[in-house]
């Protein structure tokens, strides 16, 4: 594509040269082409450097650990042992299952609470709406901070349960505002009025009119919530005590911070030692393989969801 463009430009220049067009115009066409080349070159370099770290870690995770230091782009001494090994580990398996459980429960609660909040607040005629809006807006500027939240979750008896992860995060005010703005601007009030006159109540209106008409934005924020839960590790690290309840991100954090020792436990570490003597992997390979295993699902869904994310940012920023 870009090449076509350049080829076309240079053809134009040649033709014009033949046609003895005045020099200033010729000069302009060539600087324009040069400008395009420079921009494309810079963008290419930037894109490659943004992507390179992923490629590098994928390659290292697929390499024999003795050759890991020589990897630049492609794997050296190709081996899938690291992946085979991490997926055979109990913590990794349970980590994945936990993450899936927390993520889907979390998004489910998020969506219900967000809609319950955004829908009433999108009704301009609703008495008391402004007061609730201000009540919510205040929380965007003031918060109790980490420790009071911790003490609260502890006092509610949610510590070391899934609820400590999904309930305190039930609403993101930002996402709620995106949905509210969408309801407010994109649902024609004529439809609403006519349904109301036909005797539909506000709940029917939500289910039959608002939700079907708002599918794109609901998809967008459910993706935002999904990513948030999938990537979450800090809250789990302070609220969960049992390692059997850790989500996959926290498992990865622990491998990374302790170079594998705490995460494997003594018996397993010994086993790993034996295992690795005959294999082509070491703890670094495990760390890298686990990183990729955590990143891959996101990279996989990302191209399909990208446009939804951007839509969300647009609507959010219009409000701002």
């Amino acid at each position: 594509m870009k090449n076509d463009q350049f080829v076309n430009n240079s053809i134009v220049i040649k033709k014009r040269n033949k046609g003895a067009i005045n020099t200033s115009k010729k000069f302009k066409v060539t600087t324009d082409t040069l400008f395009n080349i420079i921009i494309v070159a810079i963008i290419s370099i930037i894109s490659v450097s943004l992507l390179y770290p992923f490629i590098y870690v994928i390659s290292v995770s697929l390499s024999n650990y003795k050759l890991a230091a020589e990897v630049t782009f492609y794997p050296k001494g190709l081996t899938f042992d690291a992946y085979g090994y991490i997926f055979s580990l109990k913590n990794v398996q349970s980590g994945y299952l936990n993450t899936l459980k927390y993520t889907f429960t979390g998004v489910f609660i998020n969506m219900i609470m967000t809609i319950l909040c955004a829908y009433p607040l999108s009704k301009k005629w609703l008495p008391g709406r402004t007061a609730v809006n201000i009540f919510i807006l205040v929380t965007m500027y003031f918060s109790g901070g980490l420790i009071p939240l911790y003490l609260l979750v502890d006092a509610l008896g949610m510590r070391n349960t899934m609820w400590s992860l999904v309930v305190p995060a039930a609403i993101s005010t930002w996402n709620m505002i995106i949905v509210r703005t969408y309801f407010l601007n994109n649902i024609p009030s004529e439809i609403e009025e006519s349904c109301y006159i036909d005797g539909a109540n506000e709940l029917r209106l939500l289910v039959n009119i608002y939700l079907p008409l708002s599918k794109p934005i609901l998809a967008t924020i459910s993706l935002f919530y999904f990513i948030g839960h999938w990537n979450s590790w800090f809250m789990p690290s302070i609220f969960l005590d049992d390692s059997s309840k850790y989500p996959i991100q926290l498992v990865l954090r622990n491998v990374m911070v302790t170079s594998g020792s705490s995460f494997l436990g003594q018996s397993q570490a010994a086993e790993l030692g034996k295992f690795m003597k005959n294999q082509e992997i070491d703890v670094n390979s495990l760390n890298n393989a686990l990183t990729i295993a955590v990143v891959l699902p996101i990279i996989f869904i990302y191209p399909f969801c990208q446009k939804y994310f951007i839509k969300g940012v647009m609507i959010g920023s219009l409000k701002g």
Partner: protein
Amino acid sequence: MNSFTKNNIKRGWILYIMLVFPVVWYVVFCYVPMGGIIVAFKDYNVYRGIIESPWSSEDIFKHFKAFLGDRYFWEVLLNTFIIGTVNTAINFPAPILLALMFNELKDGPFKRISQTVSYLPYFISTVAIVSIVIAMLSPSTGIVNNIIKRFGAEPINFIMEPKYFIPIYVLTNMWKNIGWGTIIYIASMSNVNPELYEAAGIEGAGRLRKMWHITLPAIKPTIVILLILSMPGILAVDFETILLLQRPQTYSVSDVIPTYVYRKGLLDSRFDYGTALGLFFSIVNMGIIYSSNKFSKKAADISIW
């Protein structure tokens, strides 16, 4: 109350029932923790809870005075300020430059793919991002040290050396956020009237001059608003990234207020002291937002309120 309002209240009864759930949630998970701030003025006792714990003995500002008199606290505050300022100074303009370049690309697969690639790191978890950064910087196998070794120099243990902490942090942040940050600028660039560019072209302006005289002024309001919004960023450093990147060996530069609050308050279970620290920090933060907003209102007539 007139009959119109009364009618609307009656009409909206289902809506009020719906609102009960989120409002209760906001009370419990936002307002109760705000009230929990009183721990900062108490001697917290695990067995007695927040309400029952006694107010700080001798002096109600005991915990505040404790950290204000602690030299380490001021070092941590300075670290926070330095990291935040350097990061904002580099990572605030970076997406603007990238957006300007994206804007010069012709629509097509190259533009689409490079934009898609640039957004990707934003969606990757902080743990994975930091794990990748550490893998690349590893003194034994990392690609960076591999290159250094090829030039015959000694490998550097980047993660353990204080002087490399800020560059690593800023670059990690750039990698994660530069692409995503362009979206808003690209959107406001697409609102520029194309006739302006044509007119400038007829006048003989080149691409760079068009960029400077048309595109940049068009996105100026966006830049200013985002700059104000990013001002608290000077102190609100990326807690998760720092927590994962820092090592005890680099605390002298990498320890910032949020990580200090986390270590002192949560890991050492000094809840009262940690809350006092956090409270002091958010008050300073509010002050910065307020004054930057006031400044921009005066200087550019742009305000977020």
